[in-house]
């Protein structure tokens, strides 16, 4: 490791300063009022709302993007985590923000589409303007290394023949993975004992410990580490295309489960009525960032889509989720 006196002191000073500043800033999180600035956007701090707690893959995405957008567009994009109410608090704040481009936010299927279906919330998908897709986390089915199931067919067949005896862990009750699995069970007459958990960490613990038979999980870096180590045996990819990392792994559609796919799509959204000019600025900003090597390295190469999904395409993806899942919930 290099020891650079100057930069060390600079960083340590920055750390100390920022604790002080951040501590004092937490008290005044509310965004100031804004005159509609079309020309010089962004002319001041942009609040980047995050409906999840800090630390996870969505947080890494937000922070990498916020930093890149700050450099690319000027202005400062500040990530604000608000995981209260399963993300509903952040979404509600975004929905009711002034559509001036100074409040944007990451969202995924959960807080945007599913949470309003499960709960009575004061917002729905129509209260937002889609801007673009920042990252996409694929999903997969996996079993432990000592599992009797060597391929996806035998797992699903077993679940069909002995309904409710094979346990399948999913990240959360209202995650898109849980709903997609529900759809699979309905469409193909399969019945797992579905076990909702509080997220990937708990799923990994339970599969490695042999407490559940299989998992349906976001195929992120944490899972990849266990696949590499041999603790996890992936059986099927649940995206529309095959995974770049596991080229031999069949997709669910290839296995004959027509229409079965789900990804965790990290979209950027603003409130309804965001002016087209601002949408266009942010859209091209994200597009540039998805090609920025530093951002790609931080988020992970395979999670940043090669082809950028713009505002219109992102909106379509979320609208599709709405129509897919509406009949399954409630």
């Amino acid at each position, binding site marked *: 490791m290099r*020891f650079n006196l100057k930069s060390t002191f600079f960083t340590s000073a920055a750390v100390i300063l920022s*604790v002080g500043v951040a*501590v004092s800033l937490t*008290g005044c999180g509310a965004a100031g009022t804004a005159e509609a600035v079309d020309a010089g956007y962004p002319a001041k701090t942009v609040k980047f709302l995050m409906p999840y707690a800090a630390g996870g893959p969505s947080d890494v995405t937000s922070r990498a993007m916020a930093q890149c957008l700050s450099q690319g567009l000027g202005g400062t994009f500040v990530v604000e985590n608000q995981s209260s109410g399963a993300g509903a608090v952040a979404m509600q704040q975004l929905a009711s923000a002034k559509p001036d481009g100074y409040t944007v936010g990451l969202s995924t299927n959960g807080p945007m589409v599913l949470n309003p279906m499960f*709960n009575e919330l004061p917002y729905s998908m129509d209260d937002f303007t889609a801007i673009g897709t920042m990252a996409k986390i694929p999903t997969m089915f996996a079993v432990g290394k000592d599992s009797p199931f060597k391929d996806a067919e035998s797992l699903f067949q077993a679940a069909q023949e002995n309904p409710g005896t094979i346990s399948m862990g999913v990240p959360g009750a209202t995650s898109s993975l849980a709903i997609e699995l529900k759809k699979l069970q309905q469409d193909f007459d399969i019945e797992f004992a579905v076990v909702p958990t509080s997220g990937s960490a708990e799923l990994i613990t339970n599969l490695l410990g042999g*407490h559940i038979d299989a998992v349906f999980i976001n195929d992120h870096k944490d899972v990849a*580490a266990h696949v590499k*180590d041999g603790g996890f045996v992936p059986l099927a990819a649940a995206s529309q295309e095959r995974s770049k990392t596991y080229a031999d792994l069949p997709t669910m559609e290839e296995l004959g489960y027509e229409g079965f796919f789900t990804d965790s799509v990290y979209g950027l959204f603003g409130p309804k009525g965001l002016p087209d000019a601002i949408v266009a600025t942010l859209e091209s900003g994200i597009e540039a960032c998805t090609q920025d090597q530093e951002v790609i390295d931080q988020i992970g190469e395979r999670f940043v889509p090669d082809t950028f999904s713009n505002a219109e395409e992102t909106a379509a993806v979320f609208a599709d989720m709405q129509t897919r899942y509406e009949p399954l919930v409630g």
Partner: protein
Amino acid sequence: MDTLDSLTLGFSVAFEPTNLLFVLIGVVIGTAIGVLPGLGPTATIALLLPITYTMDATTSIIMLAGIYYGSMYGGTITSVLLRLPGEAASVVTAIDGYQMTKQGRAGTALGIAAIGSFIGGTVSIIGLTFLAPMLANVALAMGPAAYVALMVLGLFLVTSIGTGSTIKSLCMAGLGLALSTVGQDPIDGSSRFTFGSVGLLSGFDFVAVAMGLFGVGELLHSLEKSEHGQAIKVKIKNIWPSRKDMKESSGAIARGSVLGFFIGVLPGGGGVISSLASYAMEKKRAKDPSRFGKGAIEGVAGPETANNASSTSAFIPLLVLGIPSNVVLALIFGALLMHGMTPGPQLIAEQPNLFWGIIASMYIGNLMLLVLNIPLVGVFVQMLRVRTGILIAFALLIVMIGVFSINNSPFDMWVVLGFGVLGWLMNKTGFDPGPLVLAFVLGPILEKSFRQSMLISGGSLEIFVTDPAAALIFGAIALGILYKVLGTRLKRRKKTAPVIPAESVDIDS
């Protein structure tokens, strides 16, 4: 041995000037945010994450780890001086620590907490150094069924957390369990008792509840008293605990170290549960449990040792398996991801400098904290000389900022105030917040694990016997009950006169 070679490598990393500097920065920040009530390591680390991206990976994790275990030291101070938990894991310290302050023994309480924290932290690092891979498997062996067993064991401790009557303790535990059901159902996602409030969807925040019941409740209580009535005589002389104090606490510190170490390894365990468990255990073991709640030094030494031990061992599942066992570790996980490293089974082999560097830095950090904290005790005790009105107003302000910082949620500020009023009323009516808080922590884990177990087993209770870890814990519970029942019978037979049954009811219920 390999481990010693690796540790030497670790120390060579940790002793690099940059890393030494950042251990120091980490533990200083940790102590500071630990002192400020409500402001915990989670919010601080979240705020600092962006800065760590520009730093070397090892250096940044060394600093973040320092903040985490440093905050466990700092959290004690306001708990003891103001009955205001500086940090969630110090909630239980407020019970006896504050009583000690009232008796003029604030310095002793803080001194023993610092010593205990140091010992607990160090024992845990030694455990982390030599037992990490083995213990990671213990974490894996604990499935939903085993968590049910563990939570049931925890609920047996509820009555020993309380200082008042058993009935009142049980009422409060029931209330705690009831309150923990507010929010989204963990299994089917529907909302419960939220009455249309979006803020309640994720339930009441633990820190806001604990801070309200203990801290704000006590602040309101002291406002009632006149300035003269509550002048606390503080003898700053006896900072260093006397030989008698050390003797009384040594057992608690030893048990707290081991208990905290093991609880920290369990995903979902962490500081709060380890300190609650240690407190309950000390009270159960004590020859005269009635001293607890009246300034028993073991009630400070045990929990403070345990929360430090657990904050260190919590790194085991993260660094060995890539499983973050609590929110703070999840943040550190995120920091590693941003540096292009994935914590997982290969981390030790692929990044020995990182792994051993972090471990070695913890030895150094703990030593720094001890050196830092002992002289600071005298400074902090002076805080009690501030006029009550000013002190309370300032404390309340910090609490509000701290609680807001947890989720950036104004709603939580109402929660802390609401529970503050409840805490004040409970204080007036002789109800204890301890059992409520314990039940509130255990309730959600018990519910989720039990329902998960039932889903896995298809509704059969057999899973609690067939799951080895669950069977072990339930067996231990059964033995404990049997021992108590037989023990009381024997006692009764020895003494022909009827023994006061209150004590046995307290333990068996």
